[in-house]
């Protein structure tokens, strides 16, 4: 596989993931907040082709399920009636690119539900939540990464390139930023925001703060590379010919830091998406009922969920292709 193919594949994968997130309203069979209180932790419904009488159907169908007894999570299928999967069905309203819509890619007739990835504790469709949750999580992860790497790169380059006093000041503040208990700042920011702003916006604001205070680590790494780069003979030579600082940084120093930054970016995006798992425990994540991968994974951290409902791992699995795509992209870009 050549670097070119790799680049195309990575871009295609990323595009697919982001398109799925954008088109969540249409792709998802239900509204992400629609509760079904009789179906908590309903398992994924298998798509069937052969019915109870052994007859084959070309159009896949599902059975309705009902809870067994008083124990949550025990379900039985009602095999008396099959509910065929229908395409382009009307359903819960949503907005796509600002336009209202109510047609969904697929669905089944009521009272049956098509939970391809099962349901959570409120009987909400995991697939719908996963698709809608991707919108916030992918965006938040990318935004925080760009912010922290951007600030980190700038300060790290300046620090390594100019050295001396500038280096001392920037690196000392980096140490300060690395050492401070930022959690309290997040608490403070949350306290200053009005309670009634939408959960997603509140969360994005916090992500902004996180990205901004998290520049020290990348800065430190970039600085190390710049320290080496500025002493290379061709840099010294260029300087000798009277090249300006800006030119030196742009033409000779930055390319040296690109590989490092790309590797960092590929690692930071999933890290920031996962950071919300911890944040939501502290009331700093995206709050109910709006889904995000972080708050969905936060459910998985409970022993009873982890041990009983395997389909709750879905957001973790969804994260894998995203990580792979970012990784492949960073690989492809750094081996131009």
């Amino acid at each position: 596989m050549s670097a070119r193919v790799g680049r195309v594949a990575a871009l295609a994968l990323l595009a697919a993931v982001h398109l799925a997130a954008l088109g969540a309203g249409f792709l998802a069979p239900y509204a992400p907040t629609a509760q079904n209180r009789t179906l908590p932790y309903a398992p994924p419904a298998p798509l069937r082709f052969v019915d109870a009488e052994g007859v084959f159907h070309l159009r896949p169908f599902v059975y309705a399920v009902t809870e067994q007894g008083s124990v949550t999570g025990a379900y039985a299928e009602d095999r008396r009636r099959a509910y065929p999967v229908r395409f382009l069905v009307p359903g819960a309203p949503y907005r796509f690119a600002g336009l209202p819509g109510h047609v969904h890619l697929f669905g089944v007739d009521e009272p049956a539900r098509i939970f391809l990835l099962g349901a959570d504790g409120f009987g909400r469709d995991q697939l719908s939540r996963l698709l809608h949750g991707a919108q916030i999580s992918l965006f938040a992860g990318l935004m925080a990464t760009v912010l922290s790497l951007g600030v980190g790169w700038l300060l790290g380059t300046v620090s390594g390139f100019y050295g001396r006093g500038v280096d001392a000041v920037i690196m000392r503040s980096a140490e300060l930023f690395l050492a401070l208990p930022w959690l309290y700042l997040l608490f403070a920011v949350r306290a200053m925001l009005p309670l009634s702003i939408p959960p997603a916006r509140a969360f994005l604001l916090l992500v902004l703060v996180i990205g901004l205070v998290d520049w020290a680590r990348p800065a430190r790494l970039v600085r190390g590379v710049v320290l080496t780069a500025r002493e290379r003979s061709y840099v010294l030579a260029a300087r000798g010919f009277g090249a300006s600082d800006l030119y030196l940084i742009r033409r000779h120093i930055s390319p040296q830091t690109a590989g490092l930054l790309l590797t960092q970016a590929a690692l930071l995006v999933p890290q920031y998406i996962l950071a919300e798992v911890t944040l939501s425990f502290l009331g700093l994540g995206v709050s109910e009922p709006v889904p995000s991968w972080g708050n969905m994974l936060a459910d998985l951290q409970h022993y009873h969920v982890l041990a009983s409902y395997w389909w709750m791992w879905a957001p973790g699995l969804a994260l894998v292709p995203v990580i792979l795509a970012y990784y492949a992209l960073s690989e492809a870009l750094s081996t131009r």
Partner: protein
Amino acid sequence: MHGLLLLAGVSLLSFVLVELAPGDYFAEMRLDPRISEATVHALRARYGLDRPLPERYGRWLASLAKGELGYSFAYGQPVGPLLWPRLRNTLLLTVTATALAWLLAVPLGTWWATRRRGPADAALTGLTAMLLALPDLVLVLGLLLLAVRTGWFPTGGMVSLGHEQMPWGARVKDVAFHLVLPVAALVLGIVPALVRYVRASVADALGAPFVRAARAHGIPERRVLFRHALPAAANPLVSLFGLSLAGLLSMSLLVEVVMSWPGLGPLFLEAILARDFHLVLGPVLASTFLLLGGNLLADLLLAATDPRIRTEER
């Protein structure tokens, strides 16, 4: 000297940050219907929480001078004696895990860099992606679940119930046995990212003009890798290693809580949430020390591995 300044800056800014965050340690007491408002006020006054910020900072500095590191509201005793025994346990865990992670990641990443676009590349890419996709807590709980199902490892703590009665050798073995799961959880958490850094740096170096030149001169591949590429790849790794020392006290926080490891983790987490602020500041300051040490070490190593860097006099 600048270390002292940094410590002063960190402590002062931490005081300001906590001041900004809502609620204080005694807030929760208000929920107990049997405790009157007057009692809560009296307690706040006793710990000086009703005083202005500069005065509280002054008091804390005075306590620092006495070697107490401040006073915990929750424990009603100086912070220092609370930290020391736990610090040792945390370091035992994190130093082991960090060392193991680096020992694992450097050879693995180097090997990976030489195996581009093969089945091994694909396998490692997939495996690291999966590990990166799991929140730490899920990883830890998963390991615990494994321990319960198989009974191979203890499900928490640092020693067995009858530890005190064991002979010396058995005690060491006991602790080592209890270390397995938490260390595994930490290593699995660090290695995926680390191994990717190593791989990227080595791959970068292998593609550099001087390495290609060395190859063109017919120098054996092994020698190219170890004599030319690896030293060149060391730069970002050295910075990373320096930074990783700063995390020695905090990286295991969640793991310690879930695996009931008697380290700083449970103490620190509880203190953060309870706004038991002096107790929070203790580990924060200790981490700052480690950070300074790590950065100094990284700068020295940078200069040593790459003679071109001129480190200025500080």
